[in-house]
């Protein structure tokens, strides 16, 4: 189980309704149902992942989050989760707005392009960074809109999206990110997890 999923599960209250956008094979949904008695639904674009979810008895809709979030009514979920996919959309802004329309709150995690290893790769070696969190090369990456934790922070402020909490993840370590430690955490977190409303 990914550390990130455990952190997300801990952020959520029990017995709520959650939509996992880009739910993959349903590992997070499984965790939320078992540990938090959460009513979980998934939206997933990859056919083979959709089938895996169905075999597990999970509720999943095959579809594209970029164009098909409109099928969910306003505020029909307590939380909507988007794990490390925001950067892959053509219009992250539109998706983010949709998430907050469908859910009362959203948890959005991003691979942090401000992480020191990413920065040094470009600075020292002059090459596009390839890391564990960002395993793709420049020519085959699905990531269209890479950003840093600081970018996301500024973006939310500019778009009047309320940030309830930010967590930085580096391996097994989790730490809370606030305005006063943003610069340093932006350098040392591999993943940023934003709780938005």
């Amino acid at each position, binding site marked *: 189980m990914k550390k990130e999923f455990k952190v997300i599960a801990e952020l959520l209250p029990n017995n709520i309704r959650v939509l996992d956008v880009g739910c993959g094979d349903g590992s997070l949904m499984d965790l939320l149902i078992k540990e938090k008695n959460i009513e979980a*639904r998934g939206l997933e674009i990859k*056919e083979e992942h*959709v*089938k895996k*979810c*169905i*075999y*597990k*008895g*999970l*509720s*999943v*809709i*095959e*579809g594209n989050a970029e164009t*098909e979030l409109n*099928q*969910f*009514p306003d505020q*029909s979920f307590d939380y909507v989760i988007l794990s490390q996919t925001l950067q892959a959309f053509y219009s992250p802004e539109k998706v983010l707005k949709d998430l907050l329309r469908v859910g009362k709150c959203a948890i959005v995690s991003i691979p942090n392009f401000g992480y020191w290893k990413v920065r040094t790769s470009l600075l020292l070696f002059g090459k596009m960074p390839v890391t564990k969190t960002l395993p793709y090369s420049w020519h085959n990456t699905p990531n269209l809109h890479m950003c840093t934790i600081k970018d996301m922070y500024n973006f939310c402020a500019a778009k009047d999206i309320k940030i309830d909490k930010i967590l930085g993840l580096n391996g097994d370590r989790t730490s809370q990110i606030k305005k006063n430690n943003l610069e340093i955490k932006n350098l040392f977190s591999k993943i940023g997890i934003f709780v938005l409303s």
Partner: protein
Amino acid sequence: MESIKKLNISKSLLLDCKQTVKDFPLAYETYGKLNENKDNAILVFHALTGDQFVTGLNPITKKEGWWGTAVGPGKAIDTDKYFVICANVIGGCMGSWGPKEVDKKTNEPYGLNFPVITIRDIVRAQETLLDYLGVEKLLCATGGSMGGMQTLQFCATFPNRTYSAMPIACSTSHSAQNIALNELARQAVMADPVWDKGKYIKKNVQPKNGLAVARMVGHISYLSEKGMQEKFGRKLQERGDYDFSFNADFQVESYLRHQGFAFVERFDANSILYITRAMDYFDLSRQYKGGLTEAFKNQQTKFLVISFSSDWLYTTKENKDTVIALNAAGTDVSFAEIKTDKGHDSFLVDEPEFLKTIKGFIDSMHIKFKNEKRI
């Protein structure tokens, strides 16, 4: 006709056309056994030209049942494990109350005196069968095409009668294109002079030419353009050159003629008129004043909607619209599109990805249903 099981429906049924009927036969078949916990019953609804003989040898036509690819011992819907029920639709011609049955009032076959029925009538006529078989709550209700429409109607009309539902390649209302194709089939039947306003049935003949054309129309619509091209292309039928005639030179022509004329041996022309009409009248949002959201509200049923990428009769878009309606009503719904070239027919043929998906869904639903019953 001893091999047809029939239940007499003594409860009166008010049809959508406002006529009340009672004491009519419903022909059905079952496969497998209902277990002690009664958590393994699956109701299968057949499509336009199907019947209650889902799998194994059809005792009337002596051919393999229409869903033998999916249902049977060790199959995706495993009859060693599940109790599968299927009834012939009313309006049909495999033993259920339909236009070729004798009207007790006149002692003659109904023909066009048979009332125009709807998908809701068809589904409501089947509820008594569940009572009779001792099934309080089904594990799953499922069917493809018109069977899928019946599935959706069943869930809307009897919200708590099934734990899960799998509507396959269908829609919540018949599209203009589908109505048009059905009209083409009906006109083909009615244009045959033998049809004689449905009275052929009293003379013990059948408007074979018209009915065969109706079936050919259907068969074209069940395949995809790509599938048809790959299967037949421009291949000639057992000849090296054109015949310079109107014989079936091409394989695709031969195929259609074969399908058309094989069909008239087992199906009643008036039944085609009545059942296609029922499909055309199907519009769930029209039935419920608040639209589709109203139709599916208070559903506890867990849905899996399945579409096929090359199906142009009931497109992925239409199936997705069903999903949107179910979502808007807050129901528990899953959706999968099977990528295939086999068109609308995909649910009837050996399509491994489809079969794996339905097996995965039903098996996982069974585990959940069992656990829920235990609590």
